[in-house]
């Protein structure tokens, strides 16, 4: 009787260890790789979809709503100083190219909604803005911080490598404008 109990306890312990190991393997195997590392390897992955609350008006907005148009998703937050500095350039690009179909899409992450609205008002951001407080898109896109800017071609694929840090910065500005031209032409 005692022997049987011992074997049963050992089987339960082994099953528990195997279960935990299986959980670990499943987690590692299904871990989503962000889009940024793929872009870094020269791939052109599909732009991760999102459906988020609008910040500039009531309702929600999906990236899919702009399918067929070149989109420049820019990830920002009100507490980020370079985000404030790059805002005028993003606004001017949006105004300059929107007649050609370009959409600059601001994605506010890890931020307080009220702060974000105030920031958008103060910086006269007139392009569409969405709110991602929990920062779900940070994993999907593989962000390492803010600001970061991506380029989505009309096909819905990410092209051109992302721009890390402000697009207004020396070294980033030229690449940013080249990438805008690339998505407009693609």
């Amino acid at each position, binding site marked *: 009787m005692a022997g049987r109990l011992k074997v049963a306890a050992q089987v339960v312990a082994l099953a528990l260890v195997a279960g935990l190991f299986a959980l670990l393997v499943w987690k590692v195997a299904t871990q989503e790789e962000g889009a940024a590392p793929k872009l870094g390897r020269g791939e052109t992955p599909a732009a991760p979809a999102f459906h988020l609350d609008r910040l500039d008006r009531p309702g929600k907005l999906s990236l899919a709503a702009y399918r067929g148009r070149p989109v420049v998703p820019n990830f920002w937050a*009100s*507490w980020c100083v370079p985000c404030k500095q790059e805002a005028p350039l993003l606004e001017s690009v949006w105004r300059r190219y929107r007649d050609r179909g370009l959409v600059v899409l601001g994605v506010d992450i*890890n931020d*307080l*909604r009220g*702060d974000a609205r105030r920031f958008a008002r103060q910086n006269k951001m007139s392009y569409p803005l969405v709110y991602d*407080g*929990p*920062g779900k898109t940070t994993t999907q896109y593989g962000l390492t911080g803010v600001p970061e800017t991506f380029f989505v071609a009309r096909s819905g694929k990410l092209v051109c490598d992302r721009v890390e840090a402000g697009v207004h910065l020396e070294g980033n500005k030229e690449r940013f404008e080249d990438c805008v031209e690339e998505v407009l032409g693609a």
Partner: protein
Amino acid sequence: MRFVLALAVALVLVPAAAACPNAADLEGELICPTCKTTLDQSDAPAARRIKSLIRQRVAECASEQQIKDELVAQFGPAVLAAPPKKGFHWIVWLLPPMGILAAATVISVLVWRWSRARGDEAVADSNGRPPLDPELERRLDRELARFDG
């Protein structure tokens, strides 16, 4: 009259003041969304903004639950350092006491079995042989008494 009025005001205000949460406590129970540590351990810009909001809401005497609910509405449940006591999250609260209970049960059973085995050993002699037959023991006592006499 003035004393009675002051006392009445104090009786109304003191419980209200006591109901206001402590900002420092809240900062230890909430997570910074960018650095994933509790707010009291973080000096990240996002954490500073949330701490400032907490202090503002505490000054307005919002309840702890209200403040947490407002932050969850903006940052999601991951902003809470401890998972909420509902749905699947209960497993996090139940597993540790269940584990402790299971371990205590196993240890109790082992100790009980071990002490029982020790009891059986105690009745055996030092060579581990079973005790003498009572009749044989009486006979041995008689023989030894003869030698002593």
